[in-house]
């Protein structure tokens, strides 16, 4: 699925991902292919992006919002200060 992580001044990630683990406000959750449409807020934590079986990326955010629609994931993130 398509994943975009954007902040007001840059794009932190843009590409395909197999699995995304997000720090949701109510607890961590994961997104996989064909996830139902969802809008959720994120709290301070790490986003885990599994791009391929052996490539994993971590991105730290302070807070944010995620929107999933038709295999397109957009994360509006407030970057972490450190």
């Amino acid at each position, binding site marked *: 699925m398509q994943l975009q992580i*954007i*902040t*007001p*001044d*840059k794009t932190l990630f843009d590409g395909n991902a197999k699995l995304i683990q997000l720090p*949701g*406000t*109510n607890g961590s*959750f994961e997104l996989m292919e064909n996830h*139902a*449409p*969802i*809008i*959720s*807020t994120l709290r301070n934590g790490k986003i885990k992006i599994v791009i391929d079986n052996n490539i994993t990326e971590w991105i730290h955010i302070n*807070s*944010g*919002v995620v*929107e999933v*629609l038709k295999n397109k994931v*957009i994360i*509006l993130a*407030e*970057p972490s*200060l450190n």
Partner: protein
Amino acid sequence: MPNLKEVRNRITSVNSTQQITSAMKLVSAAKLKKAQDAITRMRPYAGKLRDILENLSQSIDSSEGIYSRQRDPNKVLLVVVTSNRGLCGAFNANVIKRANLAIETTYANASATGHLYVLTIGKKASSFFSKKSGIQHIASHDELFSNLTFESIIPVAEKVMQLFVKGDVDKVDFVYNQFKSAGSQIITLEPFLPVLPPEKSEQDNQSVSSEYIFEPSKAEIIENMIPLSLKTQFFKVLLDSHASEHGARMTAMHKATDNASELLKNLKLSYNKARQAAITNEILEIVAGAEALNG
């Protein structure tokens, strides 16, 4: 007739001034391009944020949040944004004038009771308001423009939001130059807090919103998103002012270069006239001398 040497000196000095102004114009043009790119980069983010907020607020009344509480404006904070450097025409003077106008008219009550606070961003405003009486200059954040990133504005935006939430101020307004194009900036007084409820658009967003799962509830999502959207607004104001500054400086320097060319043209004319007069004089003297010898 002006002195030849004097005119020559003036030509040299105007020439070097012109070189400086045209170089500054080029530098501003390059910086303007960068500042405009930053605004463009932020657009998808701001657009998406607004989409989601509008989508959510269709079904939720968000007027009761901590950021949207309407209170009588007894204590007012003005955030005045200017540039750190001069040589950009009336750019800074206009902002300061607009801020003063607001202090004297719209917020006369607050300033009479000594509850008018000013937070300045940009050296020009800081030096003006730190000396002005009748207001309380609470802080200046001139350093933001030296490295304008979203991360760097977060602490300042949060500070302003905290002042509002704690009730230290009842209203926060921005005074800044909105960026329209390189040639034109619009002086704007823009409300920041309390947050106005987003306009309910007439479009039928309901069908879209019902497809989504919301986690946590819609109301909580809005509550979490408002600070994010406020920081984005704060960042946009600074980006706008930054781009406007370079636009204004580019225009001012362009005019200065043009004026210098005009001045040079006139100076060269009078230089040539003076030179010609000197030559004519010399010939006259030689001829007169020769006549005297022959006579």
